[in-house]
C-alpha cells in the first residue's frame, strides 16, 4: 500500500450540492478500487494565482488516502473526463502527515 495526497480544483459557479456530490463521487471511486480515504479537507473558494482555462477562482478539495497504483489510475481517468474540474494533482509520500493543517486559518488568503 502506498500513501498519496490528492487535490483537485472545481469551477467557481457550482452550488453546494454539486460540490458535495463531486466529493462523494471521488471518495467512492477511491474506496471501491482497493483504497481507503483517511482525511478529506475543504480549503474553500480561493483566488487562483494565474488564470487557468478562463477561470479566476475555484473550490479546493484535498484527500489523503492509502491505495495502490490502480486506485490513482481509476481516479485520474474519471477526472480527465469531468468538465467541472479545472485541475488536479496527486503526490506520493513515504509518510503522511495527518496533523498539521495549512489552510485552516484565514490569513493564508
Amino acid at each position: 500500500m502506498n500513501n498519496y495526497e490528492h487535490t483537485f480544483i472545481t469551477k467557481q459557479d457550482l452550488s453546494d450540492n454539486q460540490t458535495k456530490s463531486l466529493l462523494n463521487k471521488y471518495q467512492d471511486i477511491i474506496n471501491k478500487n482497493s483504497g481507503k480515504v483517511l482525511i478529506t479537507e475543504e480549503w474553500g473558494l480561493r483566488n487562483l494565482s494565474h488564470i487557468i482555462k478562463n477561470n479566476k477562482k475555484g473550490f479546493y478539495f484535498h484527500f489523503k488516502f492509502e491505495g495502490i497504483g490502480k486506485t490513482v489510475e481509476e481516479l485520474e481517468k474519471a477526472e480527465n473526463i469531468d468538465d467541472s474540474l479545472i485541475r488536479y494533482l496527486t503526490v506520493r509520500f513515504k509518510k503522511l502527515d495527518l496533523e498539521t493543517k495549512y489552510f485552516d486559518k484565514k490569513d493564508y488568503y
Partner: protein
Amino acid sequence: MKKTKRFKKNTKGSKYSKLSLFQKPDLKYKSCPLSGKDAPKIDYKNLKLLKRYLSDSGRIMPTRVTSVSAKKQKEMANSIKRARILALI
C-alpha cells in the same frame, strides 16, 4: 595572562580593529536555514515558507543568495513547482 586579556579586547571591538594575526576571521558562509533540528518542514502547502524563497517576480531564489543546502534546495524547487501547478503561488 596579559596576552589573553588583550585578545579579548580585540574581539570585542568592531571588525576593523583587528590586530592579531592569529585571530579567526569572521565566518564567510552561513549554515543552511532549512537543515538542523528545529528547521521548518518543506511542503507544497506551506505557502508562508515557500514565499520566503521566491523573488518579487515569483522566481526561485538561487542558493548563493539564500545559502540553502543542495539537498534542501532540490526539495524546495520541487515543492514550489507543485504549488504552481495548483495555482497557489
